[in-house]
């Protein structure tokens, strides 16, 4: 009897150890980055231009480019994601073929490798759409038919679409059916019910989805490698057809293509710290909102 409990204890310990290992690995990664990145983190760093071949100065252009990218991405991606989520939650006939196809499409979208998004951005947006725009509006002069902010934003919008849809749909489903019934019984159309009663109560989900999408937008590099990101630009991007600097891309290039790794290491660590801190903050906020949403839904039932 005692021996069985002893063996029992060993296995339970094993599983606990697994958890400990994961936590430890995460802690090591975060700790290392925080430890080395902290010293360079000053207000100067965040607002200054890079200097001396990325060994001095700051990363403001990268932050600016990332913010711009994320803003455009959100402008296109969130409304589209909300509409698809509304379709799933309010309009869809579960038995219809269209519903199943749409559901499959969104699930598959979530699983597409990020590099394939990069190829899509290049093949479709840059070359096809961009080329067409150049022929139509710029008499063939290369303006949009090359890596550009707008194409990167659209590519990222497509990449983060499933994230937005999942969050918003969850929030829409959490709205009690009784609200929809009450609204319908008062003579409201479905549109009125959705936009006056259901969606306002699902705003937390829209927020969560947006925040998670923004986190991905700041951190994903592969999709924008040849669709708009650049390492060093003399000016900040001002047009949709400009290229831009990006926090994640900056980390990538600094890590792999810097002529003197040791000299750029402090800047590199600090950049990683900023990127990590940003995505962590966004994720924490999104998780907090979602937890509160779930608790409220459970309490209302």
């Amino acid at each position, binding site marked *: 009897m005692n021996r069985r409990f002893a063996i029992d204890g060993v296995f339970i310990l094993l599983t606990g150890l697994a958890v400990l290992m994961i936590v430890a690995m995460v802690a090591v990664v975060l700790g290392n980055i925080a430890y080395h990145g902290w010293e360079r983190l000053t207000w100067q760093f965040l607002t200054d231009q890079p200097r001396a071949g990325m060994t001095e100065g700051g990363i403001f252009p990268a932050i600016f480019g990332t913010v711009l990218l994320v803003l455009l991405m959100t402008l296109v991606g969130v409304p589209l994601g909300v509409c698809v989520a509304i379709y799933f939650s309010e309009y869809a*006939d579960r*038995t219809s073929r269209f519903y199943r196809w749409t559901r499959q499409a969104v699930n598959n979208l979530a699983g597409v490798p990020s590099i394939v998004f990069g190829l899509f951005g290049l093949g479709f947006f840059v070359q096809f759409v961009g080329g067409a725009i150049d022929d139509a509006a710029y008499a063939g002069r290369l303006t949009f038919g090359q890596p550009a902010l707008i194409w990167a934003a659209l590519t990222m919008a497509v990449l983060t679409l499933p994230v937005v849809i999942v969050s918003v749909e969850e929030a829409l489903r959490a709205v*009690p059916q*009784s*609200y929809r*019934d*009450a*609204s*319908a*019984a*008062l*003579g*409201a*159309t479905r549109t*009125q019910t959705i936009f*006056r*009663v259901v969606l306002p*109560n699902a705003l937390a989900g829209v927020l969560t989805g947006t925040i998670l999408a923004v986190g991905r937008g700041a951190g994903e590099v592969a999709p924008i490698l040849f669709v708009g990101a650049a390492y060093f630009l003399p000016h900040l991007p001002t047009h949709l057809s400009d290229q831009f600097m990006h926090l994640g891309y900056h980390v990538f290039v600094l890590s792999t293509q810097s002529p003197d790794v040791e000299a750029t290491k402090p800047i590199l660590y600090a950049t990683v710290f900023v990127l990590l801190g940003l995505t962590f903050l966004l994720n924490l906020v999104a998780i907090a909102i979602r937890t509160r949403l779930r608790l409220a839904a459970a309490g209302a039932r």
Partner: protein
Amino acid sequence: MNSSAASARDYPLLKTQVQARATDAPAPKEAGKMGVESLTVLYGARVAVNAVSMQFHSNLITAIIGPSGCGKSTLLRALNRMNDSIPGIKVEGKVLLDGAEVYAPGTDVIQLRRRVGMVFQQPNPFPKSIYDNVAYGLRVNGMAGSRADLDSNIERALRQAALWNDVKDRLNRNALQLSGGEQQRLCIARALAVRPEVLLMDEPASALDPVSTAKIEELMFELKKDYTIVIVTHNMQQAARCSDFTAFLLTGSLIEFNPTASLFTTPSDERTEAYITGRFG
């Protein structure tokens, strides 16, 4: 007509609860504000309402009673087509409002629901302010008008629901902060705001405490002066207390439909008598 009157009169308590009504009430068979003719509602293959025919008269309260699952809620929801969104539902027969068929193709369901209002079993005010709750129906139907118009309509509705004095100073408070009984009266006010002609009430007091229930019943007496009321209830005493006509449904079929006074004292069907004397259900 078999009369088991002897057994019903053996229950004096029930008899005293039935109030004598003026006999100028129309006979059960005359056409009313709303009516159903051979109405059958099926969920797929399951028959929920079986060829029911009855009339709902203006300025009167008609109660529909019966054991759980007898189809009374389904019948009620067929009147304002709230069943439409349920997949696999089939409706046969006629539902008439002022003589016009409600299920005719081309009927404006939105318009119908404004004219035939509904109050649900669980109070379901929107998570908005009291003011916005009552204003909702007016706004979505384009009846809001100026701010002064809206204010006066809201006051009217809240007065009709006997809630005005309780909430007039806190119209901007969240409706969910009200007590259960107050929330239900708010839902009644919300339904009344759009000036319906018929008011459908699906067990409106079953989720409330006795004091709130009594208030709702008092309210119904006042409201019937201006509206046609149809109430579904599993509480027989409530039906006996409040209604002018009572319909008894059993497994989807209409067993008896008579003035309340006679249904409860001299039921014309032995199944009705069995139900009201508590032998089943």
